[in-house]
């Protein structure tokens, strides 16, 4: 793409659609605020009409028409099958009913561990205090597969996070199971504004799966502070179509999550 040509989509549109593509029909997903909501709504309107959406505050199985601001917003119960409770929905996740869960973070490491607690200083006296786990630790511990959406820079794709708010593969293969977390669970995708990543089956370390249009491997490496697994051939992430962008705008008319 030449520098003068402005694409018909933004990085945020691309991230939302890339996340949506991971979700399959007739599966269940635990959804958090922002892009995960848009991705799940988009999936339901396109390839996954019977995607079961669950929110921690209590909504079960909605068919939302407009992006909620909060996971407890009334918009999360639009055409839902139940307006239930956190006890109910956290139990569904812990008992094994949830196929996917969405996560975000301020920092991630090579094993997919996430930090949303603090950056710099000490825990007692942090330089920057972040919100904490919220439902993230619950989602990251108990959903079968987690999908992480976050911005990527060298400072936040780090070798070791300062604080493991939410477990990825901890310190490597078998660590989750040794800690007592449900067997076979863990992160399967990381979606940033530069590329899509998975986790190597043997080492449980992050590996590049696709680069977004216009992004080079060099850029990816420059924005990662650990040794990323890079296969010989790396495909390009398919960009969103004009119809995709129109649908995202319909779902988020005020641009809360996808921008204006």
């Amino acid at each position, binding site marked *: 793409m030449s520098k003068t040509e402005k694409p018909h989509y933004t990085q945020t549109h691309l991230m939302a659609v890339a996340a949506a593509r991971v979700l399959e029909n007739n599966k269940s997903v635990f959804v958090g*605020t922002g892009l995960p909501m848009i991705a799940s709504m988009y999936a339901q309107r396109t390839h996954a009409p019977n995607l079961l959406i669950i929110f921690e505050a209590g909504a079960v199985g909605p068919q939302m028409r407009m992006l909620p601001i*909060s996971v407890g917003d009334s918009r999360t119960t639009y055409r839902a099958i139940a307006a239930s409770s956190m006890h109910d929905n*956290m139990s569904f996740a812990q008992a094994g009913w949830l196929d996917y869960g969405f996560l975000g973070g301020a920092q991630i490491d090579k094993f997919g561990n996430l930090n949303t*607690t603090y950056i710099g200083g000490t825990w007692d006296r942090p330089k920057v205090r972040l919100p904490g786990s919220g439902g993230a630790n619950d989602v990251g511990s108990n959903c079968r597969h987690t999908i992480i959406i976050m911005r990527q820079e060298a400072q936040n794709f780090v070798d070791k996070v300062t604080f493991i708010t939410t477990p990825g593969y901890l310190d490597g293969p078998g660590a989750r199971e040794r800690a007592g977390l449900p067997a076979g669970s863990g992160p399967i995708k990381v979606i940033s504004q530069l590329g899509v990543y998975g986790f190597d089956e043997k080492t449980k370390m992050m590996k590049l799966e696709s680069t977004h249009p216009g992004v080079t491997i060099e850029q990816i490496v420059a924005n990662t502070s650990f040794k990323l697994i890079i296969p010989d051939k790396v495909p390009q992430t398919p960009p969103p179509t004009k119809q995709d962008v129109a649908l995202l705008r319909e779902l988020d008319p*005020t641009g809360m*999550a996808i921008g204006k």
Partner: protein
Amino acid sequence: MKVIDQGEGELVGWHDPDENREWIRKNKSPALVDKRMSIDEAVSKFVKDGDVLGMGGFGHIRVSFAGIYEMIRQKKKNLTVLGKTAVHDMDVLIGGGCVGKVEVAYSFGHELRGLSSCGRRAVESGRVKVVSEISNGGFQWRYLGGMMGVPFVPCRMMQGSDTFRKSSAKIVEDPFTGKPICLLPSCNPDVVFVHVPRCDKFGNCQIDGILIEDFELARAARRLIITTEEIIDNEEIRKDPDQTKIPGFIVDAVVEVKYGAHPTLMPDKYYFDEEIIGEWLIMSKTDEGTEKWIDKYVHGTANFEEYIKLIGGEAKMKYLYDVEHYKAELKAPWLDKKK
């Protein structure tokens, strides 16, 4: 049972179940007493400096702001707040000078609106102390344990994480599977506020929409203050018993406050007032601004009725009803900045 590991966080709001049973025997009764009172009476009677406080709702959803503002008016001090998605509620309480300690699941953030300057500043400067970490599910089940009258609830979260390391939970060898399992200490908060759409004078409450944690939180509470949009007759409760989400015998005070959850969302009745939340987000960026906001909206109004007049009265509440019902467009100052 072998203890494998234990968190370093401060244990907050835990009571030996036998001690709690004794407390209930001495302080609670199913007598049919008219529990209606004013918010200032309820707060002065049931909230003490240093109490462990749990707010019902979900930070921006169905939160008893009538209770929050009154605690600030009465200058309650050194509260330990259970920060389970405590966002706007916690932020304003910190701004009002009421908070000493926090157990954090999700605090100091405003979801899509961004981070909260006020709460963060207080923690980063050491004015407010984070004493332990937990997850939202963790809090949920700490309340479940408190409600059930047992000392702990087993769960499969937090294991392997630093959230656990800074929590008050323990990891033991599960005597059934032999695998490590996390035990969450139960929690019986000293005082809890829940805002509901309707209840009778005895405190029997109906709640519309999602319950979030309120079913368990209310039952775990020692003192339970209900603020309600309206009071209905006891006969209405008895006609529809399946609608009762909180039984009156666990309630200590019933306060009728129309729009008492403003500026948070009240399902079916009013959407978030993003104008007022947005003004807070901008003004709370400095200590002076925070003080000005609190002076204008809390100390500057004698009660919730005056406050509602100040934020735009019935016309504003009608607009928020329309947004809640997809009949009006959402306006928010923080939204204009998104590009």
